């Protein structure tokens, strides 16, 4: 499942961040959204998802959210 499909407020675990040459994905990963991390979608604002990863709150857009696999 992609993180984009996760319903709001349900906690899931990141399975895979694809290793493609996208500096945004790399930034997101360095921010802490990485394999094995628990993550929760808090809300959607426009094209963006407000998510919370243990200790850190961040915003990613749908296109990025399509790339991130969770379970």
């Amino acid at each position: 499942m992609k993180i984009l499909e996760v319903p709001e407020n349900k906690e899931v675990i990141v399975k895979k961040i694809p290793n493609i040459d996208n500096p945004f994905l790399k930034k997101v990963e360095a921010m802490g959204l990485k394999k094995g991390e628990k993550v929760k979608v808090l809300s959607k604002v426009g094209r963006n998802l407000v998510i919370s990863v243990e200790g850190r709150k961040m915003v990613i857009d749908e296109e990025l959210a399509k790339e991130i696999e969770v379970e």
Partner: protein
Amino acid sequence: MKEITVALIGNPNVGKTTLLNLLAGTDLKVGNWPGVTVEKKEATIKYKDYLIHIVDLPGIYTLEPLSEAEEVAINFLENEKIDVILDVIDTQNFEKNFFLTTQLLEFEKPTVIVLNIYDEAQRKGISINIPFLEEILNIKAVKTIARKGEGVDKVLDAIIQVYEKQQIPSIKYEQKIEEIISRLSKLLNKKLTKHEAIKILLYGVKDRDLNNKIEELRRELERFYGESLEDIIKDERFGFAHGVTKEVVKKEKEQKYDITELLDTFLLHPYIGIGIYVFIMFLLFKVAFDFSSPLMDWLDGFLVEFLSPILVNILKTLNASDLIINFFTEAVIGGVGFVLTFVPLIAVLFFLMTFLEMSGYLPRIAVLMDRFMEKLGLHGSMVIPLMLGFGCNVPAIMATRVIEDKRDKFIVIMMIPFMTCPARLIVFAFFASVFFDNPVIIIMALYLLGIIVGLITAFFLKKTTFKGKLTHFALELPPYRIPTLKALLSVTWIHTKGFIYRAGTVIFAISIIVWGLLNLPPNIKDQSQSYAAKIGQVLVPVFEPIGIDDWRATASLIPAFLAREIALSALGTMYYAEVKEEIKSENFNFKEEIINQTKKLFISIKDATFSVFSIKIKAFEVANEEFETLRNVVKAHFTPLSALSYMILLLIYTSCVATVAVMIQEIGKKYALLFLGYSFVLAWSIAFIIYNVGKLFM
């Protein structure tokens, strides 16, 4: 005295700026990293027997080169002579911050880790076993609450300690990786730091033969793990951060109540959030105007009614010639003094902008506005530099570093100069209050016009030169924090100091030149024969179609290129020459006036405080009849419509050498000058339309 160079580094939003402000106090210098427009802050502190030179690196999450910010940090760490690395961590978020820390430890330089925001962490039940952390990594760790200034004094001691002991951090990766690194060291026949070794493994060296052997090592490692080297290194760093966290971080209870969550329920709400944003912006400008306007009036009165007569009296007792008296009243007080009266407005505006910046609210605005920006094909993050543009265009252009995409960055740089900065506001505030019954509406309309012109420019660029998909959105939402007064005042002071410095240097010099041009060639009867008049008259035909036909107004546009507020000081110098007879120096009682001025100061402070709490924007509501002299003269030479033209011209035309300079640096001479031309043509055209349409109705 020994010198220690310290690299200050950490994730964004960990309180790095606050810490630096506390460590450096007023020694803080803000500049630019060479070659790129990333703000560089540095300070040299004398402490015990040491000169500690701290260089603040951009806030980043990783040392991989994702954007200019990371490149600046990597370059500095690799190429400069650094004695100590000072790594600031948000303790609540230890593991996530430690990813960067791990990469820093790889440099094997004496390191101090600052565990900041320790109080919040404690409240969340998080505690760090500091002695153990220091032991396993061979570093020094200091817990601080920079917001309250706690623990900050220990940071400098820790720096000296690791420097004196030359404490090299120990960082051990998995056996196979360590083995490959030590074989690489043997191969190259020198001791490599982990950072160097990993870099060589990833990117190779110049020597071809060696490169083949390095490639073998790399392949061996990749075969062993069954992953690419990039992934191996990444996993290892994450793993190390996780391992250290497990060893030293203890978490006792999960705190349920979180102020950030509560606030975001409203502030990030798709509808309520927008409403609050609009209200916050209204409040920002209301407070800025209302708080500063009584103080500005007081300063104005102080200069004209108090300082000027005193100066004239002193000069007269010294038997100074009329020319010298003229110089002081016209060039010094009329020119420089007039611009200085705007210091309260500038300071309050910077204070409030800095508050928004440090509170953690700005990224929320980016998220909220992305919904609208996206419709125009623009990115929400563009809103942050644009908002900073209301403070000053120059740092706003520097702040475009938050935009990763080069194309978006170019577009936003083309928009920033249309955002009204306080320098323009000064001109607007003066003209609007002289010519219009409702100056606030005129000023707000001008702000809006600037924003619209910016959006149209961006839209146009997006549809022509910069077609393409909208870029990604990836941003951290930091927890809300109340910035300390000390940090706020310190940043406000840095900016205000810059403004005062300009008034005392550039603006003063320009005032002298303008004054000289007005009074030369020697022995002219009146100013209409002066050089200034001649220059102004040459320019009049260019500006006549937009209603500006007074040579003083056209002449003022030339020095205004240095900074827009100079337009006003130049006008001040020129028009004061006309009203000088009205400044009387007789019957001046020094003692009485001092009491009088002090009383007025208290009244203005009282007015400033009270007007902030009224709902309406009070500034400019009442014209100040005492200071009508200059206003009256200006009124005689402009009509409301030509005044509007003049304001539009200064709003849209990039009449600011500092902005043009930073644009050249950022997007190259060609585009910067092209933009300058574009802004002038656009300014003239809009003024032409508004002036001529307006004439039909007035």
